[in-house]
């Protein structure tokens, strides 16, 4: 592992990089993001709520997985300080030595965090959002006034625009890797394998997955039902 070849050296072996939950969550989120967009544009608000609440469950899962999941899924493995980000960015444009990363590189980690934070903000606002007719609303909107619910709905639209920008950059970056560096990150997110450089994936036990999945589903269900006190409420 310590003697992993630098990136771009063809001799590197194919090694596991993303565990199944990371890949499943990633592609389900892609689908639900698009589906949420489609459903709200077509006034399919029951579907929109279901989509958002499922996305919320996935986010809870992904955040917990960032602490207890496979090695490359953990925040501790890819959230870096500005120094590492700048060093990596400089190496990308051919200035200075670049370090090899098997999982998220420092720049990619930054984009993952930006997307996760925006998505958390987005689903949270959706819980309280109220439409202009006072007719359609998120499951927690009963706790807020019409004005507050409207403000949440407007912020929900603003965050959506920000999400489009950040996701757009993510997609451009991934395709740049494909076209410029001849590195297929999309395939890696499908198969979970990639030409090795740096530490390969160390998976998490299945029972951790089960516990985290149950917690995530429970939280989403509880919020969907209006967040009433869980016991005897």
């Amino acid at each position, binding site marked *: 592992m310590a003697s992993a070849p630098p990136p771009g050296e063809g001799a590197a072996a194919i090694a596991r990089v993303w565990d199944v939950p990371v890949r499943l969550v990633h592609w389900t989120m892609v689908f639900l993001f698009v589906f949420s967009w489609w459903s709200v544009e077509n006034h399919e608000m029951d579907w929109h709520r279901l989509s958002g609440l499922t996305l919320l469950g996935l986010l809870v899962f992904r955040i917990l997985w960032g602490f207890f999941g496979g090695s490359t899924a953990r925040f501790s493995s890819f959230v870096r300080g500005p120094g590492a980000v700048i060093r990596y960015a400089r190496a990308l444009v051919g200035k200075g030595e670049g370090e090899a990363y098997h999982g998220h590189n420092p720049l990619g980690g930054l984009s993952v965090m930006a997307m996760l934070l925006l998505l958390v903000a987005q689903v949270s606002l959706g819980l309280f959002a109220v439409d202009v007719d006072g007719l359609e609303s998120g499951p927690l909107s009963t706790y807020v006034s*019409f004005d507050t*619910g409207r403000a949440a709905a407007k912020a929900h639209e603003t965050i959506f625009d920000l999400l489009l920008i950040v996701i757009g950059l993510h997609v451009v970056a991934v395709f740049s890797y494909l076209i*410029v560096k001849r590195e297929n990150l999309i395939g890696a997110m499908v198969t979970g394998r990639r030409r090795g450089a740096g530490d390969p994936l160390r998976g998490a036990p299945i029972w951790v997955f089960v516990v985290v999945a149950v917690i995530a589903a429970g939280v989403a269900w509880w919020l969907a039902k209006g967040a009433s006190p869980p016991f005897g409420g």
Partner: protein
Amino acid sequence: MKTEWTIAAIAAASLLAVACGQKDEATSKNEAQAPPAAATAAPNAADTIKARQANLKKLGGALKAMTDESKKDNADLAVFKTQAPIIAGLAPQLHDWFPAGTGAEAGVKTAAKPEIWAQPDVFKQRADAFAAAAAKFSTTVDGGDLAAIKAGVAPLGGACRECHQTFRQRDES
């Protein structure tokens, strides 16, 4: 290698520019309509718009209160008895909140679309339909049958939506 990365950077930047450009276009369209007519609009057009928005918020607030209540298993009849008259009282006036000159040309931020004045017959018809729906719902509330009242909230809100879809700009307050 360097050139290729420059291309990638340009692609990313232009994507950003497109995303922002769409916004700018939308806002500048509104602004473009505003200045020339602002001088000719009646001086109280802004007040009319403000009052109209306050009234529409009352309608939305009342409907939200009833939507919330109708989701509860043990809904409280008193909530409907309080909120339904707010809507029934305001609904017949709604059509008069939109005198000519109180659209975007008034220079105040409004979501009222020019269609209101371009299609006055359709607008009147929708406003009347809303007033009728509000009156009908009031009768239901007076009847005191909670199941019927709960079922009546969505159709009443549907009358709001019906009108908003044609006559209200989506991304404005």
